């Protein structure tokens, strides 16, 4: 007899565990419930719950004399955000985040395009390694490394000097706002390090989006008379847009919330993250810290809403 004939037509279930498998197979909804039971409380209570607690805090205010929190609903804390000193922090952070996002997208796109369209085999592996490697080392180490690179005695200055381009660097540093005593204590330095640190988060989603664009759509555009510029504008870019948006969510929100980079590299002027850190720590003004935290959330929500309205996710 063949092996097949020895197998029973309807195999008996063998163990309690097997019986459980059968039961779940026949009741997929129950299975889903079991699957989600452990992570849902985590997400619901610890994650979203703490967020709502934070939101709630922002509607309280602090008593300026006693330093105690006044548990009465008020919009005073939000009004405080609008005083020049605080509003400058918000504006500074949002502009920095927007510039970092824009620069990241511009630098990431060609790299992602190469990886998605041309890199094969070991070159692709090398690409992933090159993009991910910086993520494996400590964030603080990288930021301090950049402080040394950008310092007046650093390698960048040395390089500019050797290329006889010190005048260029000096001219840049003499500019208002973006300039400063040296790159490591200027907005330019903060910007460079932000772009460096968040770059992988921009490259990978764009690469994933480009990878999903069939080659024959590019060919179809050319076939219909679209020159490379038109093909990019009307086909490649719109189809990569969900990836660019996904990447920009990372770079934008990470920049909005970061408090370490601007503290180590940059002028002493505060960013939102530093303001939150200062308010909830030394100042003990939890409501104001909470209100500051709400700002990035609102900005991101608005940003996504705009993106959706402009049809950025139509190709998904």
């Amino acid at each position, binding site marked *: 007899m063949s092996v097949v004939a020895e197998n029973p037509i309807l195999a008996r279930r063998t163990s309690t565990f097997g019986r459980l498998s059968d039961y779940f197979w026949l009741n997929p909804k129950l299975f889903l419930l079991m699957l989600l039971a452990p992570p849902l409380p985590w997400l619901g209570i610890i994650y979203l719950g703490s967020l709502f607690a934070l939101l709630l805090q922002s509607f309280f205010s602090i008593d300026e004399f006693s330093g105690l929190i006044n548990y009465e609903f008020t919009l005073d804390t939000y009004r405080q955000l609008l005083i020049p000193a605080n509003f400058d922090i918000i504006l500074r952070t949002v502009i920095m985040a927007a510039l970092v996002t824009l620069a990241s997208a511009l630098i990431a796109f060609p790299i992602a395009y190469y990886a998605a369209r041309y890199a094969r085999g070991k070159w692709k592996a090398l690409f992933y390694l090159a993009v991910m490697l910086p993520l494996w080392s400590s964030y603080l180490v990288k930021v301090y490394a950049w402080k040394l690179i950008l310092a007046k005695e650093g390698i960048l200055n040395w390089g500019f000097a050797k290329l006889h381009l010190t005048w260029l660097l000096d001219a840049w540093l003499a500019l208002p706002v973006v300039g400063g005593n040296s790159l490591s204590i200027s907005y330019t330095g903060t910007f460079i390090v932000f772009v460096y640190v968040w770059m992988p988060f921009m490259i990978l989603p764009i690469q994933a989006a480009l990878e999903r664009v069939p080659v024959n*759509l590019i*060919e*179809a555009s*050319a076939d*219909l*008379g679209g*020159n490379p510029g038109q093909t990019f504008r*009307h086909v490649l870019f*719109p189809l990569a847009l969900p990836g660019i948006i996904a990447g920009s969510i990372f770079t934008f929100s990470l920049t909005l919330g970061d408090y370490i980079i601007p503290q180590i590299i940059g002028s002493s002027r505060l960013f939102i993250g530093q303001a939150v850190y200062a308010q909830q720590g030394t100042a003990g003004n939890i409501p104001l810290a909470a209100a500051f935290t709400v700002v990035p959330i609102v900005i991101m929500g608005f940003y996504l809403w705009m993106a959706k309205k402009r049809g950025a996710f139509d*190709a998904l």
Partner: protein
Amino acid sequence: MTAVLFENVSRHFGAVRAVDSVNLAIAEGEFFAMLGPSGSGKTTCLRLMAGFEQPTGGHIEIFGETAEGVPPYRRNVNTVFQDYALFPHLSILENVAYGLMVRGIAKAERLKAAENALAMVKLPGYGSRRPGQLSGGQRQRVALARALVNRPRVLLLDEPLGALDLKLREQMQEELKALQKSLGITFVFVTHDQGEALSMADRIAVFNEGRVQQLGTPEDVYKRPQTRFVADFVGSSNVLAPSFVHSLGYPARYASLRPEALALGEGGSNARRFSGTVVATSFLGATNRLTVEAAGTRIAAMLPASAAVPPQGTGVTLSFAAEDLHLMDEAA
């Protein structure tokens, strides 16, 4: 006038000769089919015409103008892609109007032209939908409208019916043929389906291993195959070995014999005949297919369904008219 001219055109990818010294002259207004198995070079030839590939050797002319070095977007040639390649982020109307849009035609004008093109392929009013909301057959029509709206001098079709089911395919074959006649545009059609090529094309080039095996009318290719490959690939011809052909009273060359040319029995006075044993029979609806083994060769015969089918294992005599056997150029 010659629409597309290939002079000794080659396209080699390293050691792989995808297209090897191909000569073609496609006439204006012709419905030209390139037929062959996958990897035979037919699609690469189409891509050379579209401009997606550049030849590694030889010379290509489109309406008398040298095509080498001209990118696809500067060729008045349009393609209907195998899987349609519709832009997923654009509506059907925007898809069809795309070619006019990149050429800078005003919005109102191009949308009107796209509307008309959709009506021509029997999809009026579908403009606001997205490609994802359409069936395969409808997408195929949209791809056709998107190409034709540009009034191309040559329309290239890359297995456009391959993804459709049989019934729809037959219907689209007729529609394509009618459309080509009414528009007078040169159609170049790539297919691996010999039935499609035979029924639609004015002329067929049969491809194998990067070369054109035979170029001729459907009747030529079907009835007078020049090589064993053509005889085998186009239809289900019996390819007879030189020794067997010799035993039937012909010169010792390879020959093809269509299954439907064979009849049971001795036949008339000038018929040729041979005897064999029935090894298999199958019912095909309108006909019965009989496989007979004679002198070690398996020969298929198509018999009308009305004729009695001799059972497996019986000895039979098969006959055919002497002129139905086609001697091929290939010697032994």
